[in-house]
């Protein structure tokens, strides 16, 4: 039996800091505070935001754009003129990296957000209607999981003359295809979570109070799967960036003349020993991107966890126990 007498000390602490004022304290603020307390997560967020900013305004700091060929510097290592060197075609690598980062982030964010949206709608629909609808939708979902995504990516992006290739830019095409194949896992997760939520007493209580279904979904289901959705978005963004790099790396994702991190990395592999900077610069940017997202994901998961331990660190020795206890108390007061 669970100990019903225990009161979540974290919650009390958080509440205590505000005092008993009239304002309704949002859970989101508690979560935000827990997130901000996690240094790794904040660092991840900072790196990600910095990279995004860099991809939009970085172009203004370079003297070259991604189309102009510098005939005097072809395949040159980093120099004052070209901080990241130039490609074999003589294009400034800094300009290319800025452009590539932007495309990669764009793909990641769009795919991450939209696929979670699709997954949420699909998953909740399955869970809410159940029975036949659930069965049919599950079948479609499994069939899509079964399709090897890579082949479809390849077919779609390398179609012939009348293919989509000539009418839409390859990054958009890649976004669409990645979207089609990226939401199923999340949808399944959301379905099972919603199903278990539907069994919870507070949902039943609302049903017995005569609350209409759409309100139950909106007020009880969605907020309770909200944390999962946010986590899935960060994971989805990471996944999409990785997929773009992987596909472009072996030459089936983004196609030249469009640029992305994957294209830059892929193009440079053949001469990695002669032109190492061409390979490592975009690769490091990619690691910064995926790494910062992973750090954020970790911090968010911790912040959403109701049994989270981020209130204070466990104290090893009892002799120092009281001292540390008061120290944490002070620290928390400071945060307030």
């Amino acid at each position: 039996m669970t100990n019903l007498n225990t009161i979540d000390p974290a919650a009390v602490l958080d509440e205590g800091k505000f005092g008993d004022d009239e304002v309704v304290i949002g859970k989101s603020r508690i979560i935000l505070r827990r997130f901000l307390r996690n240094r790794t997560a904040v660092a991840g967020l900072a790196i990600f935001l910095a990279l995004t900013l860099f991809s939009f305004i970085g172009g203004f700091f370079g003297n070259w754009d991604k189309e102009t060929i510098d005939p005097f510097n072809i395949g040159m290592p980093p120099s004052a003129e070209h901080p990241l060197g130039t490609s074999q075609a003589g294009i400034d690598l800094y300009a290319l990296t800025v452009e590539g980062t932007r495309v990669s982030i764009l793909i990641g964010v769009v795919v991450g957000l939209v696929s979670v949206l699709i997954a949420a709608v699909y998953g909740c629909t399955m869970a809410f209607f159940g029975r036949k609808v659930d069965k049919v939708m599950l079948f479609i979902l499994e069939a899509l999981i079964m399709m090897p995504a890579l082949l479809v990516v390849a077919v779609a992006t390398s179609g012939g003359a009348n293919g989509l290739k000539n009418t839409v830019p390859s990054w958009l095409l890649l976004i669409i295809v990645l979207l089609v194949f990226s939401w199923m896992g999340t949808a399944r997760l959301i379905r099972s979570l919603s199903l278990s939520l539907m069994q919870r007493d507070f949902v039943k209580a609302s049903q017995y109070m005569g609350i209409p279904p759409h309100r139950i979904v909106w007020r009880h289901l969605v907020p309770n799967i909200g944390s999962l959705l946010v986590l899935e978005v960060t994971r989805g963004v990471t996944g999409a960036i990785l997929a773009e790099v992987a596909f472009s790396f072996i030459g089936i994702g983004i196609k030249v003349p469009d640029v992305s991190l994957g294209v830059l990395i892929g193009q440079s592999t053949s001469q990695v020993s002669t032109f190492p900077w061409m390979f490592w610069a975009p690769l490091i940017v990619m690691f910064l991107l995926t790494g910062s997202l992973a750090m954020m994901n970790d911090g968010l998961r911790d912040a959403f966890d109701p049994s989270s331990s981020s209130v204070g660190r466990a104290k090893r020795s009892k002799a120092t126990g009281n001292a540390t206890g008061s120290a944490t108390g002070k620290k928390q007061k400071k945060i307030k």
Partner: protein
Amino acid sequence: MTSNTTARDTAQGTDERLHAAGLHAPASAVLSVRDLNVRFNTENGVVHAVRGVDFDVMPGKTLGIVGESGSGKSVTSMAIMGLLPPTAEITGSVRLQGKELLGLSDKAMCRHRGSDLAMVFQDPLSSLTPVYTVGTQIIEALTVHNPTMSKQAKEARAVELLGLVGIPSPKDRLKAFPHEFSGGMRQRVMIAIAIANNPRVLIADEPTTALDVTIQAQVLEVLHAAQEETGAAVVMITHDLGVVAGMADDIMVMYAGRPVETGSVDDIYYSPRMPYTMGLLGAVPRVDVAEKSSLVPIDGIPPNLTQPPTGCSFAPRCPLASEACLDGEPDLRAVAPGTGHRAACIKSEALADVDVHTVFAVPDVPVSRFDSLPRHERKTVLELRDVRKHFPLMKGALIKRRIGTVKAVDGLSFDIREGECFSIVGESGCGKTTTLLEIMEFHKDQDGEVVIGGLSNKQAADAKAKSSMRKELQMVFQDPTGALDPRFTVYEVLAEPMENLGMPKAAIRKRIMELMELVGLQADHVNRFPNQFSGGQRQRIGIARALAVNPRLVVLDEPVSALDVSVQAGVINLLDKLRAELGLSYLMVAHDLSVVRHISNRVAVMYLGKIVEIGDVDAVFDNPRHPYTRALLSAIPVPDPELERTRERIILQGDLPSPLEAPAGCNFATRCPVFAALPPARQEKCLTLEPALEASATDQQFACFYPDGELDADMVVVHENH
């Protein structure tokens, strides 16, 4: 504060202290615990979970450790077994047959665990490894301590053990997996494992808490038999004062990690000297007492064990607390010289022969305006007519075919009048919860008629009728935590039903403040989240939500079963008060018959989807006619040692049969103690005809051909005074 002293200092100090107090363990004690302290490092600081526990257990005797959740009773047992995580800091002394156990390595401890020191755990469902057969798991216990024993011998012993704990056809069951056993059967297997090597000490930690009363009675019987078989000393840990009343020789009451009162079972039950013990005893409703008096509520919650208490840890909740109580924690002191009865209260002398009701502020028994009105003159608020719920049982891979019907609810009819509390009782699986769901469902296509406030499910099924029905009928759930959306503040929780009815904001606000006061919560707590409240407070919020729209009938699904005894009393009193003040009617489902007796006016006993006995609660409980009701009532332990030791109890055989296997004729015949005693000629009737509820002059009906019949001797147990 001993926190700065080293372990050795503490040990020396302990020795001196014990020497001074003359408390050295008696040589005959098989287990003696001295000054046991357990500390855990947690995220929120050092939790001092057990603070100075001393006790001795003599061979063949039983010690009951009683306390609420968080009192440190389970931690004590785990510390004795050496099963606490290595991060726990344990000091003091635990001697088993004179040998010190604390400080032994895991490996050295293993020579004792399972051999002379064994344990039975609370949750039988998760305590057995799901991937091994029960035979393997019993034999493992034998192998560990008897490496030379032959395979045949071990198997024979395993069969013998299973037989001993009352598992039918033990030889075949050896190969069964735990999931093929019911909870009660699994607990028997756990006991078999524990006694496999004839332990000297058997620790049972809430061994029956997860079980139905009938199964609880069986398992307690098995424990009793096991103790007689092995001659072991038993340490019985429980929160239920009834369970230990009949079994224990000595009792230790724990609160906030410390023993607050110890003594013989009679001392504790008949002359408690510590307000907490008195409160606990007064908080438990009695199934065998008709006289109605309010229960003793203990306000507040147990202290947080991360802060060392400066005074008596019970003082904040104690009605007798004075300045002196806050000055240092009182030690356990002998209540009367020469006896083992000790209490940790500076006022224990003054508490002799004091009625608990005068100590605690016990509210008066509330009287409803309907109570004086004869039942037939009151309006009916709910009526069920022949309600059935049958589930088809399907089998087959590609083409499903129906292999049978589960009759979860089978032809139920009853009514509830204004201002009345009607309860349904029975073992889990008897269909009582399904009945509630059927009522809450309120749908046209249901089999049978449900009439709520004059509105029948047959004629009214449109949204409007349904919503007016919802206003009449609200529900309180068993688990107060699950019933409140963790993301809602209390304000939002309470506002939800009213917003749904389109009430204006100002009115909602006013009503919420009223509700908070009504259920005894502070009005300025409306902005808190449910996890900032204790279990009892959460249940009060649940009740407030149910009352928000002024319903006439409230459905209570096990409203107090998730709560601690002291908290439970407060909630029961509240329910009683609300019924009287607001003229509410209740439909309650509960497995705790003591609670049912305390709060209900009428009761229905269900067995396999049918009502077997129904009527006025005092009539049914004082003079049960149906053998099932008799068995059910006799299974409930009463917190009265004298009575417990002498009374005869009916121990039903086996578990509740699956509703699928419901036999023709009377469906109780398979387990019926009366049926078993009947001559075959008279048994015939039970097997072929289905008994109906017979109307009678009084308000008590039952469905049995042989009421008050002779009971089968095999199913009746009377314990000789031990």
